[in-house]
Structures are given as structure tokens and as C-alpha cells.
């Protein structure tokens, strides 16, 4: 199990939306009606740049010729050496690619330093609470106090820990959130990744100005809405066991301005966005891509799809 050193101070309690379902997912206490989220007490929100080649693993260390005449021992030594060199080369290459990709974050350095985990959680909580039809989120009064005891509710609850990691595409048009979620106690935790891919900005040349304007209002607002959406998805879809009757299909979606494919089960579709359970068991939310040869305009804001949910 992962260590969560800074996630100890306060608790965000959110009702589980899917618990009328007959089967609860592993890691969820039977009859649980709430997730008690451990909220981080401090620390910065982690960000990274998305490498331009994202979607493909780094590889291809190149062919190596093996020395002859060294006998069987020499031959196997050469193979082991090759394996070590290839692995080391791939690891170094991954780091180089990531370091290069992270440079896209330089214009936002000050903003991102100011956007701490507690601030983001508070904003996400307020965002969730303001949404019609979403179970009210309550932050315990003890939340502000360091090392506060978790809120004890009358109803059974399950515990949850969530760690966000945001990423920005190389053209600065698209934000992606990967929320690592651990539900359940230490005895039987379930770990899942919820990925939320925001709609790309129309114009990359305006991206830096867009995200940084008004003290980063758009960047912070997007990050908040994405985290709130991911927490909502965690409560709706991780609380129930996967339904094997829903067929696996290839779904088309928009990421970094391109149409991509993800295989999985469709969980929901609304506001131009699809939510699918991926082959790895994670949950992914992204803007649905139109069928080939067609175009689709984003849906107009409605009570069911308000403007603040358009990210």
C-alpha cells in the first residue's frame, strides 16, 4: 500500500451515490453510505507536462551485437549486460523526456505554487456542494485544526484517500487530472485511477494568457471542477462492483485536441462527455469525439449541464 504522509488532518464526508446497487465494490464497507475522505493538510498540488509522445512507452535501445568466442558463460553475461544497459537507457530516456515536457509548466510556476492541496480540496468541496442533485459535501469543523480526529457520522462509512496529479499538454490547451483513489481500510483497500481530461482550448497561442489571467482564475477553476468531477465519479462508480453485462467497446474521445481511442465499458454520457470504465479498471471521463467525417458542436449550457461543469 502507498504511503500518504501528508494526508492526515481533516475529513471530507460525501454521500455514496451508487450504494443502492446490489453489489458493493471490494474495499467498500457493507452498507456504507459515506466516503470519509482524508484531506491533505498541506503540500503543493503535483503537476507535470505531458510528453509529446504520450501514449507510447519509451523503448528501442537499439540492437547490440553479441561477442563470439567467449563461451556459454560469456554469452549469458553479454545477454544480462544488454538487459541492464537497455533498462538503464530506457529509464534515462524517460527522465529526459519528462524533464523536457515539464518545461511547459514554467509560465505557471507562481500560480501552481499558490494552489496548495488544502486550497484545492476546499474549492472542490464548495463546487460539489453547489451542484444541484449532488449529495451535499460537508467538511468537518475539525478540518482546520491540524491532526484533527475524523468526523464520526451516525451512518456507516468507508474511508477514502485521493491524491491528484495534474498534467498539461505541450500546447497548453489541455489539462488532465489523474486522481489516485484508495477506498476501504488498510485490511482490504482498493486502488483505482480516475482520469479526467478537460476539453482543449480552441487556440494554443492564447493558452498562457487564458490560464494566467486574473491570478489564474481559469486554471484554478478548471482544476477545481476537474477534482470535484473526479470525486463525484469515485463515489458513483467505485462504490459498486463492475457490471460485466455492459459490453467492452472502443470509445472515441478528445485529448490534447486529437481523437483517441479507449477500450472500456460506457458508464455514462452527458454534457458531451463520456465516462468509461477502462480495461485496467480505472474510470476515465473525456469529451466524446464525433464519428469520423462528422462534426459536433459542444452542447449549450442547460440546467443539467451548467456552465461551471464545462471543463
Amino acid at each position, binding site marked *: 500500500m502507498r504511503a500518504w504522509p501528508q494526508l492526515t488532518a481533516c475529513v471530507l464526508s460525501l454521500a455514496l451515490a451508487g450504494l443502492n446497487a446490489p453489489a458493493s465494490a471490494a474495499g467498500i464497507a457493507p452498507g456504507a453510505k459515506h466516503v470519509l475522505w482524508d484531506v491533505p493538510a498541506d503540500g503543493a498540488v503535483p503537476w507535470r507536462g505531458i510528453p509529446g509522445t504520450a501514449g507510447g512507452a519509451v523503448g528501442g535501445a537499439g*540492437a547490440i551485437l*553479441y561477442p563470439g568466442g567467449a563461451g556459454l558463460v560469456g554469452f549469458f553475461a553479454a545477454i544480462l549486460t544488454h538487459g541492464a544497459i537497455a533498462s538503464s537507457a530506457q529509464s534515462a530516456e524517460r527522465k529526459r523526456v519528462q524533464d523536457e515536457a515539464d518545461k511547459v509548466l514554467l509560465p505557471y510556476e507562481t500560480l501552481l505554487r499558490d494552489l496548495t492541496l488544502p486550497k484545492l480540496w476546499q474549492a472542490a468541496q464548495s463546487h460539489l456542494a453547489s451542484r444541484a442533485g449532488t449529495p451535499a459535501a460537508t467538511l468537518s469543523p475539525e478540518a482546520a485544526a491540524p491532526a484533527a480526529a475524523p468526523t464520526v457520522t451516525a451512518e456507516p462509512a468507508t474511508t477514502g484517500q485521493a491524491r491528484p496529479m495534474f498534467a498539461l499538454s505541450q500546447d497548453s490547451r489541455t489539462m488532465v487530472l489523474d486522481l489516485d483513489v484508495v477506498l476501504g481500510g488498510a485490511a482490504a483497500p482498493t486502488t483505482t485511477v480516475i482520469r479526467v481530461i478537460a476539453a482543449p482550448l480552441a487556440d494554443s497561442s492564447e493558452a498562457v494568457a487564458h490560464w494566467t489571467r486574473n491570478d489564474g482564475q481559469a486554471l484554478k477553476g478548471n482544476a477545481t471542477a476537474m477534482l470535484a468531477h473526479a470525486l463525484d465519479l469515485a463515489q458513483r462508480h467505485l462504490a459498486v462492483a463492475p457490471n460485466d453485462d455492459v459490453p467492452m467497446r472502443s470509445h472515441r474521445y478528445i485529448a490534447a485536441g486529437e481523437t483517441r481511442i479507449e477500450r472500456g465499458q460506457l458508464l455514462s454520457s452527458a454534457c458531451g462527455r463520456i465516462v468509461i470504465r477502462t480495461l485496467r479498471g480505472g474510470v476515465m471521463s473525456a469529451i466524446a469525439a464525433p464519428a*469520423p*467525417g462528422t462534426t459536433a458542436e459542444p452542447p449549450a449550457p442547460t440546467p443539467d449541464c451548467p456552465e461551471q461543469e464545462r471543463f
Partner: protein
Amino acid sequence: MAVSEFPKADTQFPGAYCLLCLAVASGAHSKLTDHVRTLSTDDLKPMQANLAELLRKRGMDVVVLDAPVKMAELPDFKGTGSAEQAFSPKDFSALKAKHGIDRLVMVNIGYLGVWRSYSAYVPTDVPKAVVGGHGYLIDLSTHRLEWSAPLSISRSAEGAWDEPPKFPGLTNAYFQALEDAIQAVTRPFVAAK
């Protein structure tokens, strides 16, 4: 227009050329091979309809040959090509006579599945989902190729690939590769706007 009979998805290990090398590579990936052989090719089926629709939009009178063409059963075309003029590798005269067509758009999917490149006994790369083949537009009166393009799609798993027994990362990459193949085949026929 026609498509070839799709091959079954399978693994290959190019570069593991000696018999013992191939045995080592195959043995090391037996679970992956078992899984890849269960993967469906059904997602390629819309390719023919999509392509036919694009040809109709270009004003062509299109006959879609429903039954997939078994390329191995067709005789080779005897003509010889040159740098300026290439000919179809297969003789499609039987299709011309049977369906009354003068040109044939043929998509031949030659291989699909997962490949991992080797240097003798040692893998030199991560396994990748692949789809490969060729697309042709053939003048059936001469068997001259009016258009020809190789198809070579390769997709890596996002993140880890070694996830037996269901290999979700590579499975996802495989279905991405199938979609990429459809896009690659149809793209040349999309009318400029």
C-alpha cells in the same frame, strides 16, 4: 471495393531468427500469445463501409464485395512492373468478370496482433500492437496500380505492458491500432473541403 480476409491476431518476434531464439521468445511470451489470439478483429469491419461511403461522395458508382477476398487463393499477376508503372501482385480478373467492375479498391490486411522485436535472444523493445498491409486502386483492364500505399500501424501500451492474464494496456493499444488502421486507409479518400 473489397477487403481481404482478416488474419487472426497473433504474436511475432522479429529478430529472434534462430530456432532456439524463437523458442525462447515464444516461451517468454506464452501468456501474451494466448491472450492476443483471443482478440477480435470485428472493429475493422466498418472500414469497408466507411471507404465505400467516401468513394460514393466522390461520385463513384461503388460495388461492395461482401465476401472477404482470400488473397492466397488468387493467382499471381504475371505482368512485371517498373519504377514508373507498378502492377497488382494478384490477378483479380475473376472479380472483374463476376461483378462487372472496372476498378478495384483493395485493402489487404496482412498481419495484426502484437510484435516484439528481438536481437537474437534479447528483446530490444517493448511489445507493440501492430496492424499491417497494403491498399491498392487497381485498373482491372490492365492490372496497373493507380494508387498504392503500405499500411503499417504500431502502438505501445500506455504505461506498463506486462499485465497478465488480460494485458489491458496492450489490449487497449491493439484496439487503438485497429482504429488507426481504418483512419489510415480511409484518409486518402476523404475529399478536400
